[in-house]
C-alpha cells in the first residue's frame, strides 16, 4: 500500500499542488498512508444506496426496513 514519491510528485506537478521535496514527502507519508489504509477499509463496502451527508436536513434514523 502507499503512493510512490514519483506519483505524488506527478500529482503536485500536474494538478498544481504545493511543492514538496522528497524529504518532505517522507514527513507527509504517515498521513497519506493513514488515508489510504482507511479507504482500503471501505473498498468493498456497498455504498450505492447510502445517501451523502452533503444532503442537509434529510431525516435520519429510519428503521431497518423503512
Amino acid at each position: 500500500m502507499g503512493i510512490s514519491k514519483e506519483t505524488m510528485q506527478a500529482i503536485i506537478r500536474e494538478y498544481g499542488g504545493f511543492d514538496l521535496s522528497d524529504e518532505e514527502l517522507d514527513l507527509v507519508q504517515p498521513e497519506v498512508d493513514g488515508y489510504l489504509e482507511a479507504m482500503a477499509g471501505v473498498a468493498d463496502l456497498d455504498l450505492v444506496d447510502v445517501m451523502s451527508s452533503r444532503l442537509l436536513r434529510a431525516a435520519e434514523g429510519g428503521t431497518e426496513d423503512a
Partner: protein
Amino acid sequence: MPNDALLDLTISELAPRIASREVSPVELTEAALARADQLQPKLNSFITLLHERALERARAMEAELADGKYRGPLHGIPIGIKDNLATRGIRSTVGSLVLADNVPDEDAQVVTLCEDAGAIILGKENLEEFAAGATSNNPHYGAVHNPWNLDHIPGGSSGGGGANVAAGVTFASLGTDLGGSVRLPGAFCGVVGLKQTFGRVSQRGLMVTSFNGDHIGPMTRSVADSALMLQALAGYDPLDPSTVPVPVPDYSAGLGGDLSGLTAGIPANYFFDEIDSEVETSVRNAIAALQELGVSVVEVSLPSMEYVGALRAASLSDGVVTHEPYLTSDRDKYGPNVIYRTLAGQFVLGRDYSKAMKVQRLIKEEYARVLQGVDFLITPTTPIPAPRIDALDIELGGETHRVRGPGSGFISRNTSPMNGNGLPAITVPCGFSDGGLPIGVQFIGRPFEESLLFQVAAGYEQVSPSRGIRPQV
C-alpha cells in the same frame, strides 16, 4: 471569603452572590487576573492577557449592578476565549505565526453572546497551531502545561482553556471541537467539556476551520455551569447557515432529576477496543455508579465504526483547502506538525471524498437507529490519560501510536466520531490514573437533547470520585 478563594467556586455558586452584590465583579476579575499572572509562567495557557480591557468591563458590570441591572448568571463572570475565535480589536492568532498580527474587525458570534450575557473576557487562550492537533504543544507560543502535572499535555486543541478552568483561572472557557478539541482538554484536565449538537451554536467568527464538523463549546468546572454556558450560546444565527432553527430549552431545568428509567447503551465494539486499563476501570466504575442511580444498561453494537477512518479523506481535503491561501503566502511560517499533516490533503481523490460523505451518512444513520433503543451512550472520552509533553508516540497493548503531527489521531479516536455524526457529547471527570492524571467519561445523546445529557452528567457528577478534587499548581 478571600477573593482568591472565590476562584475555586463554580459559576452556579457565584452567580447569586454577584446578583446580591455580595461579590464584586471588579474584585473577582482582579483576583482572576492575579492568578492568571501567577500561573502563566507554569501553564502558558494564554497567548494574550487583557488586563485593562477585563477590568474596564468588570467596572461596567459592577456599575450595572449598582443601577439594579442584572443580566443573568454570567454577569461579572471571568471567562477565557480560545485564540481561534475572532475578537474585535484584539489580536486573534489561531495559534499561528501566519496570523500573529491579525486583529479582526468583528467579534465571533459566541463572543458577542457571552459579553451580552455579562461575561468578562480575561484573555485569548493558547492552543495547538491552527487548532490542528490534540496536544496544545504550540511551536510558536510554547506548550500549554497540564495543571495536574506540568510535564504532561492538557489535551488539545483547546488546551489553554482546559488548563485555565482546571486551575481556577477562568470559570469557563470557550473552546472549539473539530475532533474532540473541547472534550479532550476536558478529560485530560479534569473538567467538564461539552460539544453540543452540530447546528446548535453559531460558528460565525471561528477562524481557519473546515466548518464540516466543527463546534464551539464550553469547558467548565461543573455540569450546571456547562448548562449555563450553553444557555448563553445556543440559538439560530441567520448569518451562519450551519445553525438550525430549533427552540432553545431551559438547560438547567432537568438538573438534579431522577435518572431511574433511563437506559444507557454501552458500545460492544470500537470504543473499548484500544484503551488503557486504568481508563477502562474508571469508566466501567462510572457505568456501575449510574446503574446504582437507577440507569439501565444494555450493550449496543455500532458496526459502522469499522469504517470511521474513511472520514479522514474529507477532513484532509477540507484542511488543505482551508489553508490554501496561507500555504500560498506564508508557508514558511508553519510549524512542521501542522504543515505536513495539512499538505497530505492534496493527495486525496475526489472519489474518496464522496465516499467519505457516504460513510459519514452511514454512521449517522446507525447512531440514530441505536439511539432509538437507548437514551444515551457511554464511552471513555480518551483511550489514555494525558501523555507527556515531550512524547511523540505512546505504547498501548504492544502497539505504537503517534501522538502529534502526521499520522496522529489516536488520542481523538473516541471523540472524533461525534464530530462526524454531529451528536451532542459531554465529558465528565470520573477518576484518576495511578499517576494522578484525570480520566473522563463521555456521554453521547440524541440530536438537540443536551438537556438529557446535562441531567445524566449532573447526576453522575454527584457520585464521581473526582468530585471536589482540584489540582494544586
